[in-house]
């Protein structure tokens, strides 16, 4: 009886840890390699920015999130057009 209970507890812990680890990394795993590479490059660049620029970008992020979806789409489209023009 004691061994069986111990076995069940261990199985339960394994399942719990496995599901937790899976849930934690899900967003990152769902990204395609191109997106992952982009995030990695941007993160490295972000690391080297001075604190004032970091703070500014955080504020811009908050402002971006407060924008209506159509406005965001519009700006995103403009950004893509601009980038294609540069290429």
């Amino acid at each position, binding site marked *: 009886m004691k061994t069986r209970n111990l076995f069940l507890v261990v199985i339960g812990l394994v399942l719990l840890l496995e599901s937790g680890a899976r849930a934690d990394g899900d967003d990152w795993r769902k990204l395609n390699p191109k997106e992952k590479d982009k995030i990695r490059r941007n993160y490295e660049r972000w690391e080297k920015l001075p604190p004032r620029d970091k703070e500014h970008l955080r504020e811009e*992020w908050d402002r971006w999130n407060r924008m209506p979806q159509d406005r965001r789409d519009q700006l995103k489209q403009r950004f893509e057009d601009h980038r294609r023009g540069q290429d």
Partner: protein
Amino acid sequence: MENREGTPLEGACRNYEEDLVLYYYAETGVSERTMIEQHLAQCSRCRKFVDDLVRVLPQMAPKPELPQPFWNDYFRETVAKLDEQTARQNWWRRWLVPLNGWLVPAFGTVAIAVFAIALMLEKGHFKSTTETVSPNIPAEVLVDSNQLEFFKSLEILESLSTLEQQDRAQPERKSSHTESERGTQAA
């Protein structure tokens, strides 16, 4: 009470009848036995009653006397059956007894390991883990969808003000462009 020949047992003294039956079966105490024996020495009716008990009762409930060879065979057969049963039950236990101390924990560990590996293989956990390990990005960023989205949108954020200025300027340019077009068409 009647014996087999139909001769009724003659009655003993009323006070002694029950005690005499117990006396016959030797189930009386020492003092009672002494008292009954003293009474038997004086009372011929009770003596006759005891004699009748000695004569009649063994015939009523004869003891089954089985011959000694029967008991010898019985003992031999019982021992043989027990040996056979013990041998039949324990052939596998003899193999498992040395493993008994660590068999259950070992089996449990192997089962857990197999289960965990099967679970990870089924969901492609190994592949994704090895492929997506990013030593440069801390885990707290990888697990936070908001942070991931932030770093994904970093370029837009950097040029957000410029984009907005362009967006404000563009309609003006567009409107002035259409006005000039109208002027040309009118001319």
